[in-house]
């Protein structure tokens, strides 16, 4: 850990973006927070550029909190949140939001479930009342459930079963994680969806949908004191309730490379390599997660970054390559590289080329120029972020829900900017070990009709046999 003065920290984007640096500072002067008596967190960012506002309510509950046998219940509950309360009938939530000119939706991840409405700013109070109503009074009746679960199974077919790359990722998570709940898909296994009942959803809703497990985020053309007042009137009247104990899942240290193949209709193979690496735990003290973020940017942050240059342009062993590393999660992180070989090259050749590119960083490090370039992109994107109210609300909600707090944003930006070439080389040397690696490969299957029919028949026979 290195200590530097705050003044110097904040000067990094300022210097890089001269004369626009002040724009990259986070919205500390227009962001306001409070906590309601029932424990619900409220964060409001005033942004008066346009007469609109976004409301988001984030629950700190996702598939990470599920148990075997009821996978997918976090997401099913999200769907059921639109199915009505005693005063807002089924489908009526959407109609009321639409009637005031708004749009609404919701999403579920491993770590959280969130609901949002984008509305003309004058209508904010209306949607706050609606959202508060369904935090407490969801009806959850069986008829609506029986249709909605069918919708969700269609969603699973569309997103996962018929998408070869999604099947690779689902299978890879199930192999890479053994103890940790990240091994289970957010949408749930099909057999769990088939056996789920509305009672499972009711149970989930009762346990987790309480104000002391939620954060309200509002960004837009609003007055924060007024929003705080409305929050007290709407959410503030909902009683707090003790939350269930949250288990801590420690993934045992992986000792040895893991490998899996997935067969699915495709033409190009796909190679996914994932290394277990640290997550951001303490935004103030950690160094490595920031260095890994900068490494990802240097490897793949623009068209002439290391990986596209080496693999797609120079060696021409890949048609595409993607890098992903998310340091901010409730659970552990993986650093993932995904690529498809160019026809004429094998997946093994591609794997060797990727290992070569990583070894080069580990052995020779990166240049000061590459790091400066990554910082420039980072600082510019801080300015671009301010163009979207929804984007700002997402960032605030995510940081709050994952436990870092929205104020971590400027700190994290500065810590990213402080990463040195030595830090980048250090993480490249330390974390990309085979023992921590999982490799998944998509083995393309032809669409040939006859062969497919035969395979389907075999599968059916196996299934029928299995029922006895």
């Amino acid at each position, binding site marked *: 850990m290195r200590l530097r003065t705050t003044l110097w920290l904040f000067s990094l984007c300022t210097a890089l973006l001269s004369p626009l640096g002040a724009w990259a500072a986070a919205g500390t002067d227009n962001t306001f927070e409070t906590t309601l008596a029932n424990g619900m967190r409220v964060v409001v960012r005033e942004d008066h550029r*346009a007469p609109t506002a976004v409301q988001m309510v984030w629950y700190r509950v996702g598939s990470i909190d599920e148990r075997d046998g009821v996978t997918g219940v976090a997401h099913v509950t999200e769907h059921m949140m639109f199915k009505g309360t005693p005063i807002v009938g089924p489908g009526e939530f959407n*109609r009321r939001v639409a009637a005031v000119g708004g749009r609404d939706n919701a*999403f579920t991840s491993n770590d959280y479930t969130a609901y949002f409405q984008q*509305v003309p700013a004058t209508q904010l109070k209306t949607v706050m009342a609606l959202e508060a109503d369904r935090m407490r009074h969801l009806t959850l009746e069986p008829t609506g459930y029986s249709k909605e679960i069918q919708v969700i199974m*269609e969603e699973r077919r569309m997103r996962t079963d018929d998408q070869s790359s999604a099947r690779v990722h689902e299978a890879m998570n199930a192999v890479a994680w053994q103890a940790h709940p990240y091994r289970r898909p957010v949408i749930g296994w099909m057999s769990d969806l088939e056996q789920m009942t509305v009672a499972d959803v009711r149970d989930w809703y009762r346990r987790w949908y309480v104000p002391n497990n939620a954060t309200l985020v509002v960004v837009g053309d609003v007055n924060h004191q007024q929003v705080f007042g409305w929050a007290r009137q709407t959410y503030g009247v909902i009683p707090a309730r003790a939350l269930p104990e949250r288990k801590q899942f420690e993934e045992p240290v992986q000792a040895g490379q893991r490998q899996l193949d997935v067969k699915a209709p495709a033409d190009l193979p796909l190679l996914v390599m994932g290394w277990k690496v640290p997550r951001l735990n303490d935004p103030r003290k950690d160094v490595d997660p920031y260095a890994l973020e900068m490494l990802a940017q240097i490897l793949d942050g623009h068209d002439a970054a290391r990986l596209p240059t080496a693999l797609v342009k120079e060696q021409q062993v890949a048609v595409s390559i993607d890098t992903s590393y998310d340091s901010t999660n409730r659970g552990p992180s993986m650093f993932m590289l995904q690529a498809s070989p160019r026809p004429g090259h094998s997946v093994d050749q591609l794997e060797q080329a990727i290992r070569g590119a990583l070894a080069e960083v580990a052995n020779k490090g990166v240049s000061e120029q590459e790091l400066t370039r990554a910082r420039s992109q980072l600082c510019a994107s801080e300015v671009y972020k301010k163009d979207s109210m929804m984007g700002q609300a997402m960032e605030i909600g995510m940081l709050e829900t994952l436990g870092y707090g929205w104020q971590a944003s400027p700190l994290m930006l500065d810590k990213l900017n402080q990463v040195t070439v030595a830090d980048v080389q250090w993480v490249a040397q330390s974390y990309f070990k085979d023992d921590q690696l999982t490799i998944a490969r998509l083995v393309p299957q032809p669409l040939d*009709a006859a062969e*497919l029919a035969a395979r389907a028949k075999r599968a059916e026979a196996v299934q029928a046999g299995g029922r006895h």
Partner: protein
Amino acid sequence: MLMKQMMKSLALAAVLMSVQAIAAPVQSWTTAQGTRVYFIETHALPIVDVQISFLAGSAFDPPNKVGLASMTASLLDQGAGTRNEKEVAEALADIGAQMSAAAGMDSASVTLRTLSDPERRATAIAMMTDAISMPHFDDGVFKRDQARSIAGLKEALTKPQVLSQRAYMSSIYQDHPYGRLATPESVAAISRVDLEQFWRQHYSAERASIALVGDLTRAEAEALAVQLTASLPADQRDVPRTLPKPSTTSAKVVRLDHPASQAHLLVGMPSIARDDAEQIALQVGNYTLGGGGFVSLLTKAVREDRGYAYSVYSYFDPKLVEGPFTIGLETKRTQADDALKVVHSVLDDFLKRGPTPTQLKAAQDNIAGGFALRIDSNSKLAANLGVMAFYGLPTDWLEKYPDRVRALTPEAVRSAFQKHVKPEQLVTVRTAAD
């Protein structure tokens, strides 16, 4: 991350919309070189967004070299002026600018987002100017991307949604340019020289339109437009600027086999051109039918009442000539017939009766009432302005939009639908349906 519903219909529904949120009014002028420029001045953020579009989309592909427009656009920023491919990408990253180029059906566009300080802006605009005026079309880059493009296409041709969409477009447009689709063979037939020729023929100032949004004065915007278009290829009068009208389709069903677990169903026909006065009536009516996300008739009947699909939608996509009206959904393959029956019954009923006064009012309340949401960021303004500039929509298009929506009657919507959506012309594509 899973969403309750994909935003497909919103994304596809043509960008329409509305006004006076962030911004000052739309200003417009034509440069001495003949380029139409639309501009919104807003200094709230130190950002400039630029889009330049050319009449150079895939509809202008030569019939035996489909894919040429797309390859031409994608190579513009891969080596131009004094910079090679690598230097372009590095220079953009150094100033934190974002530039991309791509071809659609009608237009090919280059878009740029940059910080607005004079130094960065100047570098970014110079690079955008180079991309459209002095592209290298380097042979090595071309051969590499041609191979990647063929590989990508072969992969795409295994996906049920891609196969379905392609069968749909070629069925409703047949020999029309909108119905021609790139194949591995047509892309392989393209040479480097073709790219250069296509660029010379289609990237003239007279075929260009510019949309500018952000932290610029009018004088700066005018100078920027002049700079961008000063060195473009001279216009070649004999190169067509218009497209033929699509022929009338007749109702038919096209079936494709695929091992997917879900059937992909598409129903539609060529329907509306961008200059058609009835497009607002259709867009507003479509909100009720299948565009209004969770509250549409199709979502109610197919998803909410029966649980047949996660995603069901309808949209109009107005183009230079009649663009498609499309209804789409995915459902498990054994359910395809039942789901299609429901779709047809909802559509037939809507065509017969049009929206009820209550339904129309709900559509108006959402579209006109929520108009500010369509223009509450620089990037949304830039996207709207790009469409307006390319199709030459009036500068008060956004400003007047809510009033024109409010002025519609149920009769006007019904008659627009009856004129533009005809059951006897609807083509149905069933992929992976039992």
